[in-house]
Each structure stands twice: as structure tokens, then as C-alpha cells.
């Protein structure tokens, strides 16, 4: 029989965080909590009359399952560290801004702004929700930075303080600048348009001469800020392109803007016409708007985290016989450091004291923690799961294994992306120049010199590739917006095009295909009696091996039993005598069982009681929901590989879903992952999409054409990548890729539309009869119709792909 294959469905959810409660033991009145951490937050809030937190939203909290050590923030008493974190202090009051990644709803907002009810020293607290930041002012007499941080941590919002904060304090302010430009150009465009109306609608010279020329002064005055302020980025980009000997799309645009302006000034000065300044400012306005829509920034998401942001700021180091917090950078070789439970080891060090149980999943991808013995080396990036450890540093942060990984060349070179738009624009520019020159040549041969100049300049004006630019910017903007609604965030609009070209997908296993936290236990074998269950549980409780712990939790058998001659053989298993029964738990070789082929999925732990092999516990990763479907769909179109740092226990299982052709590689070091991707790109001409989640994938993510980091929950930190995908949306991966391919179709469609407009314009221009009125009608009509078309098409395709 198969015991306990399905766990009883428990529908009780935690009052604080909404997580499923394993039991109802942790409760307060009618409220049940999943862990004592959640209960503590509730009690604290209740004490301070802050329970409106729970009225605003249901289960607004963040799970508090990992307890935070009391002296964790001891380093915040250090004046040098404080100085680097705060933004201002006058000795009485201090201002500081914290990044609080847990912030996610209006309850958080409310609680964080009412924090002074818990800590009276906080004078004011202002939240910027989009940035997930809180700006705090506190009174130095009543509280300290450490206490403020501890208060925030106590209510479940532990500020993210990292080395990266310390070394780089600059806050990027880019979007504001473009908003100014957009405002100014919109203002000038609308007013120039208004000033031009009288001239367009005055038939037969009805408009008086003085009024007409006075309005011209206004128009020229209004066009100057557009040319010299709003349009600067096009000129700058064009110049940069020229210097790199690259004809980018900004070049023809800059030329068109300049020619339009010069020609308009000439017309107005000579009194031969009214110029095209309204069209010029309109074009600039729409193009700026397009760029703004496209370059949306996710201010609370960072795509550029390097290893430093994962490290603690300070570590307890022995100085003169006492352990004091020392900034990680200042920890030297041969220093003795103390690592506490749930802390990251920031340096390579030799274990000297304590029971280590290091989780390398983030660094290497191994799903099961490693148990190094005293004297063995522990590498930077591992996380201690057990109790406190003492270690001797062998390599400083700047020399450690993890840092070396980061210093590889891929991280230094910027990815070169060749956009289809830049390609198209080059043909476009060539064709326009050809038409212009042939029209000019024709009129020159006819002897119409004035008409020749007229035709040449108006051709360049009307055939400005701004419509092409608008097509791509608005399409990309819409796609990014729709993707972000499905919790898929891309770093840059060019990534959409790269996604469309993908033909090979590489998956990481641990944390990507599987859920990072959960393991599934499955028992196969003879029935276990209740007494045997307690005996096995008692024996397992003696072992610190991760697998023992997982099975122990699965059995849920807590009873004290006398154990005689307990023995733990590292790498094999445990044995002992309970109630005159000899129990052996461990690998097949250890208990002397036959390792049958059907048991090759996951890690197998055998149980033998008194020379009878009872059965086997299979400990397996839990795969993400929907992963079979999405692999099936992706398999039809893409080649796929699995690149895992973990062992090959799951190989047979994965083979079923990936098919025989797929490459399934296990036990790969981060550097090997990187070179595998490099090989694919070089030998198979593959455009690789890599999906990973940990630091161990960082190199591969960077090397691949598109690297996507998967994140679970809202306070998970992801390595540098081109895109960040919420793990819950993993099943939509094929839809995202299909949608990215649709993007190209949308750009092409709107581009064809803009060509049609161009042909109409050119029809007039080659004859030298493009009047400012036609230009003034054609420009907004074409721009607006392209904006509407791209919006409509991207919404349509988004729905079709099942997004939103």
C-alpha cells in the first residue's frame, strides 16, 4: 500500500499572511497563524492599535517564517555604516530612505506611514509606493537607526540593506527630464498649430499682412524651444551614431527636423510661404511621446543586481577576542568570523566550529543542502541553515569564488542588439535620398531651379522616417505594458525583438522548473505501523541531514523514544536500536536493498527494520504547475535543454517531458553553464533563451541572447537579466514568446500604413506642390492613426495569446 501519498487538504489560511497553515496550533482567539512570526506581528500591531492593517485588505502580511536574530542589525550602531546609509542628519534629526521590497498593498502603505505609533522616535514616514521606498525622519534622542530598522523588521518589513547601497548611492532620475520635454513640445505644438490656422483658412489673402507677419514671429519664437530643447536627443543620438560609423534611425530624423526648420525660416523670411513649423513640432511631440511609452521603467525592479546586493553588509568578526560587526569589505584573510543561522557566507572560509548545513542552491543550483565537516571549505554564497558557525577566512570578498565568477568577461561587455528598425531605416533613408535626388535632377533638367530646391527639401521633410519610429516605439510600449500586466518585466524594448528570434530554450532546473522551497515525499513499500512510524521519526530526528529532516516533517511523528547505539555514516545513512528493533535508514547500498529502476526519480531513502526492507521514501522536487503543458507546447517549436547544477536524480523524469532529442545536463558549474550557451550560439547558430533563477545562472543568463530570471514572491532577489518573470506565470511562457513574435507583425503592419501616407506626401512633394496645409493635415493624421493601430493590434494579439 502507498501510505500518505496525499496530504489532508488544509484550507485554514494564516490571518496575517494568507499562507496555508499546516496546523491550527498557533492561534489567538479565532485567528490562526501559519507561524509564530506572523502571530508576533499581529500581537505587536494589536498592542499599538494598528489593526486597521487587517481591515484594509485581507491577509495583507508577508510570511514571517524565518525568524530574525536579535543582534542582526548590530552593525547599524557603527557610525561609519550609519553615515553611508542616511541622507541627512543635523545631530537632532536624521533622514533616511529604505527600500522595502515586501511592500505590496494599501495596508502596507497605511502601516508604514503610521509607524510612529510603534516607534515614538519616528517623526514622519512617507512611502513612495512605485519605488517601494519609505522616507523616514526620526529623532536622534528618542531612537536610533538600528531601532528604526528593528521596528520595521518587527512588523514584517525588513529593509533591504546591501553592499550595493553603500557603494552606489546615486538614484537615477531620467523620466522627469523627458516629461519636461514632452510638456514643452506639446505646448509649442498646440500653440503653433493655433497660430497657423488663420493662415490656412484665410482664402484669397483675407488675413491682413501685419497680423499675418506678427503671428509668424510668434510661430518662430515657439518653434525655437522645440528645436533647441525638445529635439536635442535626436541630434545627440544621430551624432553618436555617425561617430560610430553607424547610420541609426535618429540620423534621417535629425536631418528632416533640421531641413524643415531651415526651409520654414527661409519661407517666412522671404515671404514665400508659411513654413512647416507646426508639422515639425508635432513630429517631435509624437516621437517623444512614443519614446516615453516605450521606455517605461519599473522603478521597483532592478535588472542589474550584482552579487554584492545579495551579501550582508557586515559580518561578526573576532577582533581582540570579541565578535563585533565588521563591514564585509574589511574582513581579511585569517580573520575568524561567525555566521548565524540563515546568514549568507560572504567569503570563502574554512569551517572551524559548529554544525554546518549549507544551502548552495542560489550559487550552484543544488537543491539539497550540503553538510561540510569541520576543516572543510565553505564557499561564498552558501547560506547556513543550522545554528551558528565559526570559520576562518581563506579568501576575502574581492577574491572569493563568487566574485571571480562575476569578473568574467561576459559581465563587462554590453550586449549588441541589432534592431530590425535600424535595418529598415537604412533602406528607407537610401530610398528617400534616391527619390529626392531623381526628383531634383528632373526639375533641374527642366530648368526649374526654384522648384528643384522646393521638391528636394519637401521630399526630405515628408519622408521623415518618424512614422517608422512611431510604429516601433508605440508597439514596443504596448507590448511591454501588456507583458508587465502578466508579471513579465523586460529590461529594454529591444528584448522583445530578441525574444521573437529565439530558437533554443535552456532551462535551469532547481528553482526554475521546480519550486525552490518545496520537496515532495512519496513512500512506496510495505505498510508502516504507527509504532514503526514513531521509531523511524525518532531516529530521523537525531540526524541533521537535510533528507532526514524532510522525511521527518513528512511523517509528522513526534514521540520521544530511547535510542541505543545511534550511528550516522556520512553519505550513507543512519542506524540505531529502538525498542529492541534495529532500524537502518539510508541509501540502497547502506540497507542492502535492490535499487530498482522504477525508483530512479528523485533521491531514494530506504528503511530497513530488523533485516526486512520495508520500503523507500522518494524525495523529489515539486515541479511548477503547468510545466508539462508549457513544455509540450514549446517543444513543437523550439529546441530545448536543461542545464542544472543539481545531481541527475530527476533525469529520467525530465526526459519524459523534454523528449529524447533534448540535452539534459546535470552537475554543471556556473562557468560550464556559460560555456554551454556559448557553444550553442557558436556551433548551432542558436538564439538562446535562458531561464534561471540563481546566481549560478548569472553567467549563462548574461551570455544568452535573452536571459530571464524567475522570481517567487515579491521580495525575491534575482540576478542580472534581461527580463524578470513572476514564477506563477511560468505556464504562460509560450504565450509570451508568441506575443513577442506578433510584435514584429504589428510593427510591419503599421509600417506599411505609414508608407502609404508617405506615398501620398511624396506624390505632392516630387511635384514641388506640398503645401504647409497638406503637411499639417498629413502629419497628425498619420501619427494618430499609427498610434491607434499599434494599440489596437497589440491589444488584439495580447487577448489572442491569452494574456491579461
Amino acid at each position, binding site marked *: 500500500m502507498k501510505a500518505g501519498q496525499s496530504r489532508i487538504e488544509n484550507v485554514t489560511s494564516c490571518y496575517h499572511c494568507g499562507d496555508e497553515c499546516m496546523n491550527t496550533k498557533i492561534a*489567538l*482567539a479565532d485567528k490562526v497563524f501559519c507561524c509564530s512570526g506572523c502571530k508576533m506581528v499581529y500581537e505587536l500591531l*494589536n498592542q499599538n*492599535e*494598528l*489593526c*486597521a492593517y487587517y*481591515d484594509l485588505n485581507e491577509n495583507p502580511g508577508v510570511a514571517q517564517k524565518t525568524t530574525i536574530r536579535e543582534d542582526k542589525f548590530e552593525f547599524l550602531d557603527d557610525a561609519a555604516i550609519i553615515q553611508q546609509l542616511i541622507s541627512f542628519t543635523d545631530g537632532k534629526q536624521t533622514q533616511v530612505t529604505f527600500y522595502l521590497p515586501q511592500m505590496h498593498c*494599501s495596508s502596507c*502603505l*497605511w502601516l508604514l*506611514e503610521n509607524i510612529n505609533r510603534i516607534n515614538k522616535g519616528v517623526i514622519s514616514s512617507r*512611502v*513612495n*509606493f*512605485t*519605488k517601494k521606498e519609505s522616507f523616514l525622519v526620526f529623532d536622534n534622542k528618542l531612537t536610533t537607526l538600528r531601532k528604526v530598522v528593528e521596528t520595521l523588521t518587527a512588523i514584517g518589513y525588513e529593509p533591504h540593506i546591501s553592499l550595493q547601497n553603500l557603494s552606489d548611492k546615486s538614484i537615477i532620475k531620467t523620466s*522627469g527630464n523627458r*516629461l*519636461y520635454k514632452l*510638456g*514643452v513640445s506639446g*505646448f509649442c505644438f*498646440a*500653440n503653433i498649430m*493655433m*497660430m497657423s490656422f*488663420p493662415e490656412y483658412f484665410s482664402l484669397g489673402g483675407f488675413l*491682413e499682412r*501685419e*497680423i499675418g507677419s*506678427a*503671428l509668424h514671429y*510668434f510661430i518662430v519664437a*515657439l518653434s525655437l524651444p522645440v528645436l533647441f530643447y525638445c529635439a536635442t536627443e535626436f541630434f545627440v543620438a544621430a551624432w553618436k551614431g555617425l561617430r560610430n560609423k553607424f547610420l541609426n534611425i535618429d540620423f534621417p530624423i535629425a536631418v528632416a527636423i533640421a531641413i524643415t526648420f531651415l526651409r520654414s525660416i527661409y519661407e517666412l523670411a522671404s515671404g514665400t510661404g508659411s513654413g512647416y513649423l507646426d508639422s515639425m513640432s508635432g513630429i517631435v511631440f509624437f516621437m517623444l511621446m512614443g519614446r516615453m511609452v516605450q521606455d517605461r521603467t519599473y522603478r521597483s525592479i532592478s535588472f542589474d543586481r550584482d552579487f554584492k546586493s545579495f551579501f550582508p553588509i557586515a559580518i561578526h568578526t573576532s577582533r581582540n577576542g570579541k565578535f563585533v560587526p565588521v563591514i564585509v569589505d574589511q574582513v581579511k584573510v585569517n580573520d575568524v568570523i561567525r555566521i548565524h543561522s540563515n546568514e549568507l557566507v560572504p567569503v570563502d572560509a574554512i569551517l572551524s566550529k559548529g554544525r554546518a548545513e549549507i544551502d548552495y542552491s542560489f550559487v550552484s543550483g543544488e537543491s539539497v543542502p550540503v553538510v561540510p565537516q569541520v576543516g572543510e571549505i565553505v564557499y561564498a554564497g552558501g547560506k547556513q541553515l543550522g545554528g551558528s558557525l565559526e570559520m576562518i577566512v581563506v579568501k576575502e570578498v574581492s577574491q572569493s569564488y563568487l566574485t571571480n565568477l562575476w569578473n568574467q568577461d561576459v559581465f563587462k561587455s554590453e550586449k549588441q542588439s541589432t534592431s530590425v528598425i535600424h535595418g529598415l531605416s537604412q533602406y528607407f533613408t537610401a530610398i528617400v535620398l534616391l527619390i529626392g535626388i531623381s526628383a531634383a535632377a528632373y526639375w533641374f533638367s527642366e530648368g526649374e531651379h526654384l522648384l528643384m530646391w522646393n521638391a528636394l527639401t519637401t521630399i526630405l521633410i515628408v519622408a521623415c522616417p518618424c512614422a517608422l519610429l512611431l510604429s516601433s516605439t508605440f508597439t514596443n510600449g504596448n507590448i511591454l505594458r501588456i507583458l508587465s500586466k502578466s508579471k513579465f518585466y523586460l529590461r529594454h524594448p529591444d528584448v522583445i525583438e530578441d525574444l521573437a528570434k529565439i530558437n533554443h530554450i535552456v532551462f535551469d532546473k532547481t528553482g526554475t522548473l521546480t519550486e525552490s522551497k518545496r520537496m515532495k515525499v512519496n513512500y512506496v513499500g510495505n505498510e508502516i505501523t504507527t509504532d514503526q512510524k514513531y521509531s523511524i521519526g525518532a531516529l530521523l530526528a537525531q540526524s541533521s541531514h537535510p533528507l532526514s529532516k524532510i522525511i521527518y516533517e513528512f511523517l509528522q511523528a513526534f514521540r520521544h523514544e530511547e535510542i541505543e547505539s545511534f550511528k550516522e555514516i556520512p553519505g550513507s545513512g543512519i542506524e540505531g536500536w529502538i525498542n529492541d528493533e534495529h532500524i537502518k535508514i539510508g541509501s540502497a547500498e547502506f540497507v542492502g536493498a535492490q535499487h530498482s529502476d522504477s525508483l530512479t526519480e528523485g533521491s531514494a531513502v530506504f528503511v530497513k527494520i530488523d533485516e526486512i526492507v520495508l520500503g523507500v521514501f522518494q524525495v523529489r522536487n515539486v515541479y511548477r504547475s503547468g510545466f508539462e503543458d508549457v513544455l509540450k507546447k514549446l517543444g513543437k517549436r523550439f529546441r530545448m535543454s536543461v542545464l542544472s547544477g543539481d545531481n541527475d536524480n530527476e533525469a529520467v523524469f525530465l526526459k519524459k517531458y523534454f523528449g529524447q532529442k533534448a540535452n539534459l545536463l546535470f552537475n554543471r558549474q556556473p562557468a560550464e553553464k556559460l560555456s554551454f550557451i556559448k557553444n550553442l550560439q557558436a556551433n548551432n547558430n542558436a538564439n538562446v533563451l535562458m531561464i534561471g533563477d540563481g546566481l549560478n545562472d548569472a553567467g549563462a543568463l548574461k551570455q544568452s541572447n535573452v536571459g530571464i530570471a524567475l522570481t517567487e514572491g515579491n521580495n525575491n532577489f534575482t540576478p542580472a537579466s534581461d527580463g524578470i518573470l513572476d514564477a506563477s506565470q511560468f505556464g504562460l511562457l509560450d504565450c509570451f514568446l508568441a506575443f513577442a513574435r506578433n510584435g514584429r507583425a504589428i510593427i510591419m503592419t503599421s509600417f506599411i500604413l505609414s508608407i502609404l501616407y508617405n506615398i501620398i506626401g511624396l506624390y505632392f512633394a516630387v511635384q514641388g506642390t506640398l503645401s504647409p496645409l497638406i503637411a499639417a493635415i498629413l502629419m497628425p493624421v498619420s501619427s494618430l492613426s499609427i498610434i491607434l493601430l499599434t494599440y489596437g493590434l497589440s491589444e488584439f494579439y495580447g487577448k489572442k495569446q491569452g494574456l491579461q
Partner: protein
Amino acid sequence: MSIIILIAAVSILIAGGFLVAFLWGVKDGQFDDDFAPPNRILFDDTIKTKIKK
């Protein structure tokens, strides 16, 4: 008819006023956060709730 010139000048001045207001708003960070202000205004200043045990 020259009154039109005056009207045009005045209209630009008024529109300029709005432009300045807009730029001021951008500078002040009005467009930085679109979640907190609309939610903040809904919070009651005096909510003091204690759920009795």
C-alpha cells in the same frame, strides 16, 4: 483687427501658465508615484482598532 495680435499674445501667456504648472508638478514629483496618494487620501486619520482577545 490688430486686437487679434493682443489676443494671441494673451492666449499664449495663459497657456504658458498651464505649462509652468505642469513643469512644476513634474518637478515636485507628482507623477512619481501613482499608487500612494490616491490610497493615502482614503485612510482615516483616527482609526484606532484593537481587536479584543
